[in-house]
């Protein structure tokens, strides 16, 4: 079903990894919004969105990343993206996300960036 979407959560030290699987569009974005919102509310602000299983994203999905970035950074954390497939990456690229977000080729690299204090857009 091309409107299936799910978020799986795991922790790696102080970092929360949210694995996105499926299609992130205006219908499924609220699910992702809740997942990130829950982390932020509970004080977890070091977040990696593992996009390896993300096969589609529209602006509604991009909007979730946009709307949380400032708050998460103000709380001392970061919202990093990792392992985006090329078809999806071209959408992030067209809109200039790479200049503002830390987009890592793998979850491992995103974790290394967290321990080195690297952010995007700096």
């Amino acid at each position, binding site marked *: *079903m*091309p*409107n299936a979407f799910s978020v799986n959560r795991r922790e790696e030290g102080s970092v929360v990894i949210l694995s996105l699987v499926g*299609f992130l*569009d*205006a*219908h499924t974005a609220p699910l992702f*919004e809740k997942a990130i919102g829950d982390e932020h509310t509970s004080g977890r602000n070091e977040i990696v969105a593992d996009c390896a299983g993300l096969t*589609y994203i*529209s*602006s*509604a999905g*991009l*909007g*979730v990343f*946009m*709307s*949380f*970035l*400032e*708050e998460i950074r103000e709380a001392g954390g970061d919202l990093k993206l990792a392992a985006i497939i090329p*078809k999806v990456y*071209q*959408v992030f690229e*067209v*809109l*200039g*996300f790479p*200049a*503002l977000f830390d987009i890592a080729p793998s979850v491992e690299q995103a974790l290394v960036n967290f321990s080195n204090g690297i952010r995007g*857009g700096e």
Partner: protein
Amino acid sequence: MPSIEQTFTLQVPSSTVNLAMIREFVARVGGMAGFGENDVAKLELAVDEACANVIEHAYDSDTTKQVSVRATFDDEQIQIEIIDRGRGFDPSSIPQQDLDQLIAQRRSGGLGLRLIRTIMDDVQYQIVPGEKNELRMVKKIRKP
């Protein structure tokens, strides 16, 4: 060989749950029109954005309303029309904001129209609020 025009139409209830079906429709028609995989993905995105706008803004998520997607292609281009009978709007009044501004304002929206304009070669709105609003978008088929 003269270029034969083909038209495909899909009409669905105005609900975001149907965006997936709209994308499948566009993918299939785009493939028949001769677009490559990357361009098909872009077409899906542009139509998704346009239909999501109709569902959320023109119809305020009233699922009893209908969204129409009409795709016509020949050898040279595909034209996709998105038709609604909802509220309408003035596209020229919508400011194009940069990503860093949107992020600073913690906005979760405001990228749809930019995506549509970036992907498609021509984008025209014909708005008659409450009667018939039509978004007509064209993308040229680039032969490999």
